[in-house]
Every structure is written in C-alpha cells, then in structure tokens.
C-alpha cells in the first residue's frame, strides 16, 4: 500500500509535468501569432514558417544533444526511458524541451522581416544544441562555469523559472543578431528618425499574448517541479496566483503610462505590458505575496514602455516585436527583483548570474551570427526585403486575397 501511494505520487507528478509541458508547448503558438500579428503582411508567412520550423528544430536538436549536455540523458536520449525517480524522465524531457524552444522563439521576432530563413534555422540548431544548454548546465544543471565558479554554490544565484536563463538568454542572442543584421530598410531616415512599421494584424498579436499568458502558467507553475505533496501543491498554487497577478500589473502599468505619455491607450504597449509582467515574475514567482507580485509586474510594465521607446528611437536598435525589451531588459529586472522577497538571493549574486548568462550567450551568438554571415549570408537582398520575405523565402503570400496598402 505504501507502494501504491508512492505510485500515485509518481503518477500525479508526472501528470502535472505533462500538463504543464503542454501549456508551455502552446506558447509556441503564442509566439507565432504575436509575431505574425506584429510584422507587415508581406513578411507574415515567413515568420510563421520560421516559428513552426524553429520549434521543430529545437525539439529535435535538444533531443539529439542539448538535453544530455544540460542534464545528462545520453546522446539521442538513449539514456532516457519513461521511468524516473519521482516522476517520469520522459515527462521531464518533454517539459524541458519546450523551454529551449521558448528561448529560440524570442530571437525569431527580433530578426523578423529581413533575415534569411535557412540561416536562421542553422542558428536555431546550434543555439538549441549548445549555446542554451551550456548556460542551462551552469544554472539549473548545477555545474560550475568552466570550472571557475559556481553560480549556485558561490553566488546563490536564483532564477526560478528562467527570467534570465530562458528569457534574457533569448534576448541576448536576439540582440547580437539585430546588431549584425542592422535595421530594416526604411526604418530610419537619413536624419535617424524612426519610421513606424505597423504590424498588420493586431487581433492576432493579442491572441498570441493571451496564449502566452495562459502558457506561462505551465512555464512557471511547472518549474516547482513537484505537485504531489501539500507543500508543493501550495507552492504551485502561489506561483499560478502570482504569475497571473504580475501579468495583470504589467498591463495596467503599461496602459496607464501609455495614456499619460502618448495620450492614447496604445494596444501594442498593453500587450507588451502583459508579457513584461510575466517575464518579470518568472525569476521568483514563489516568494512574493499577490500584491508584491502585482507590483513587480507593474514595474516590468513601466520598464518595457521606456525600453521600447529608447531602443527604437535613441539607440536605433530595430526590433520589430520588442523582444529585446520584453525578454531582455525586463528579464534582468526580474532577476534583480528576486532578492526583494527571497532572502536566499542577493543582488550581487543575481548580477553575476545575469552577467554570466549574458556574456556567454551574447558572445557565442555574436560569433555564430558572424560566422553565418560569412558562410551563407544572413540578410536578404534589398529588393527581396522590399518585396517581402514571404515571396523570396516561402514563395507564397500569407493573405493572398486581401488587397494591402
């Protein structure tokens, strides 16, 4: 009977992982819709192809080697079977693999509308096989950074569900890509003024945001890594509650700031506010109270509005969907907010962790982007860009029937 109870715990934990994993997988749809809504219609089919392709590549390459690097499990998962200790190994892999896909999705939005599709796929394959698993190994994997220092043991670095490990990492790779790619044609005039390039389908972008919001319950909730005890159940519940509260706080703060600053309730800022709230709470959704979670999210919502404007207009970093601001800048805020409610973490430790992740991911990505540029080129020609990458890369149009301006 003792055994039956253990089995039930095992079953419940496994089930919980699978359900949470399915929610995170759903985020792939969220990123696709968000990005498809925020690009111009002539680049929509390509970004859809990019998103479904990168998800498939991430799932496959992480199976081939990434998971083994990060947690063990064997090349081609040959060391993995259904069976695990307190829950199924297969469920663990399933849950982890959707995280790496999330990190990769962040990149796809930032380099949208001008990048060669297959160069991106090569980047995705290498990022998900090595770049991400390596920093994952140093953090969640518990290994020391090139044998020099240990983020966990030496610095008490805490990143509950990946504000830094997943989101900021994705943003770092994106930033490297954007710097090398340069802005979209026509984005800045001779005087350096930023010209808005409107997303073609905001309902789609809103749907994507809602999907991400929903999927995030799996992202954060699943990161408790256990369900089948009172303690872990309570923890998961608090994480759900706080994740929701932070997203709500992000929306409200971004909307109010937009209204105050621009005079209008800019929908794109509300959407970014929701995502910023979610990114902000991800590093520590377990310790704050609901009120504090709301505030952490709200600060994220404020930061993202400023960051988008500054990146776009002052730094002239052209990020069509705002991924670097949402996942990178706010991801850092999320890491730094952890010590506010969790005494096990320290600002210094969080900064060292953030720095380590950033330097590694940004540095290796930069090299990889440069290598790809030399080897196969990463940017489509000016004319192809003008015609839209849908035609050049996919040969078809996303909305072939609708007349577009």
């Amino acid at each position: 009977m003792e055994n039956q109870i253990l089995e039930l715990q095992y079953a419940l934990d496994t089930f919980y992982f699978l359900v949470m994993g399915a929610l995170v997988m759903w985020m792939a749809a969220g990123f696709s819709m968000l990005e498809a809504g925020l690009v111009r219609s002539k680049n929509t089919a390509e970004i859809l192809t990019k998103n479904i392709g990168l998800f498939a590549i991430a799932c496959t390459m992480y199976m081939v080697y990434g998971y083994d690097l990060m947690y063990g499990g064997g090349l081609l998962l040959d060391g993995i079977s259904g069976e695990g200790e307190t829950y199924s190994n297969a469920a663990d892999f399933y849950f982890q693999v959707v995280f790496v896909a999330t990190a990769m999705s962040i990149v796809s939005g930032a380099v949208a509308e001008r990048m060669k599709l297959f160069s991106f796929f090569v980047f995705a394959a290498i990022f998900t096989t090595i770049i991400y698993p390596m920093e994952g190994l140093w953090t969640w994997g518990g290994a020391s950074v090139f044998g020099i220092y240990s983020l966990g043991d030496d610095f008490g670095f805490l990143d509950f569900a990946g504000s830094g490990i997943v989101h900021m990492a994705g943003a770092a790779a994106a930033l490297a890509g954007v710097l090398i790619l340069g802005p979209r044609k026509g984005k800045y005039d001779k005087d350096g003024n930023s010209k808005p390039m409107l997303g073609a389908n905001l309902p789609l972008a809103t749907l994507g945001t809602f999907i991400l919001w929903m999927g995030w319950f799996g992202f954060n909730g699943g990161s408790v890594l256990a369900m089948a005890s009172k303690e872990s159940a309570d923890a998961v519940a608090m994480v759900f509650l706080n994740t929701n509260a932070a997203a709500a706080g992000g929306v409200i703060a971004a909307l109010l700031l937009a209204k105050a600053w621009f005079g209008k309730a800019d929908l794109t800022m509300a959407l970014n506010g929701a995502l910023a709230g979610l990114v902000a709470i991800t590093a520590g959704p377990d310790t704050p109270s609901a009120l504090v979670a709301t505030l952490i999210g709200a600060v994220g919502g404020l930061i993202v509005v400023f960051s988008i404007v500054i990146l776009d207009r002052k730094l002239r970093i052209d990020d069509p969907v705002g991924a670097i601001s949402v996942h990178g800048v706010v991801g850092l805020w999320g890491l730094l907010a952890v010590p506010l409610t969790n005494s096990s973490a320290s600002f210094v430790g969080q900064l060292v962790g953030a720095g380590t992740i950033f330097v590694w991911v940004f540095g290796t990505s930069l090299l990889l982007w440069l290598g790809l540029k030399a080897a196969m080129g990463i940017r489509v020609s000016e004319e192809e860009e003008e015609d839209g990458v849908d035609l050049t890369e996919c040969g078809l149009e996303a909305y072939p029937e609708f007349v577009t301006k």
Partner: protein
Amino acid sequence: MKMVTVIIQPKRLDSVREGLSEIGVTGITATEVKGFGRQKGHTELYRGAEFVVEFLPKVKLEIAITDEQVERVIETIIACCKVNGGAIGDGKIFVSSLEQVTRIRTGETGPEAV
C-alpha cells in the same frame, strides 16, 4: 456624353447613391481611393511613436451621363456632400468628355448605352 468623376467622403456614399438614383442616374462605379488634398491627414500612434497618415480614405465615383444631365448631377452631388455649410475634405468633382459608350450585353452605343 460626359464622365463625371467625384471624390467624396466614404460616409456620404449612401446618400449620394440615393440622390443620384432619384434624378435618374442608372449606373455608378465606385472605387476605394486615398486622397491627399487640403484636408490634413490624422495622427496615429504605434509603439509609442507618432506619425501622420497623409492619405485619407475617400471614395471615387465615376458616373457616365449624357450632356444634359451634367448640371443636375453636379447639383445633386453638392447637395448630398456639403451638409454642414461645407468642410475641408468634402470633395471635388471632375468632368471630362466621353467619346463613346458601349453596353456589352446588347452592343448598344451612345447615349442610350449610358
């Protein structure tokens, strides 16, 4: 025969169509166009950046009529489009000459084909 081309505010389309029907116009071709004129475009916002949309949505009507109808048609259009004493953007009427009109269905040509 004349071709009358009018640029109007989209919201006036229904009343112009009704007005022209009443005075016996039996055919109209309408096109969505963007107009750039004395009326200034409006300001939009996107991710915190303001910008001006220069071209405003307008409707272009093309109306082929006989020479005698010209005056009435112009009067009617003005009556339907200049509603509150006239405002910038109310529109413009262009008249040009039409050499020939053919109804495909019957092959009729000239004024009876209009």
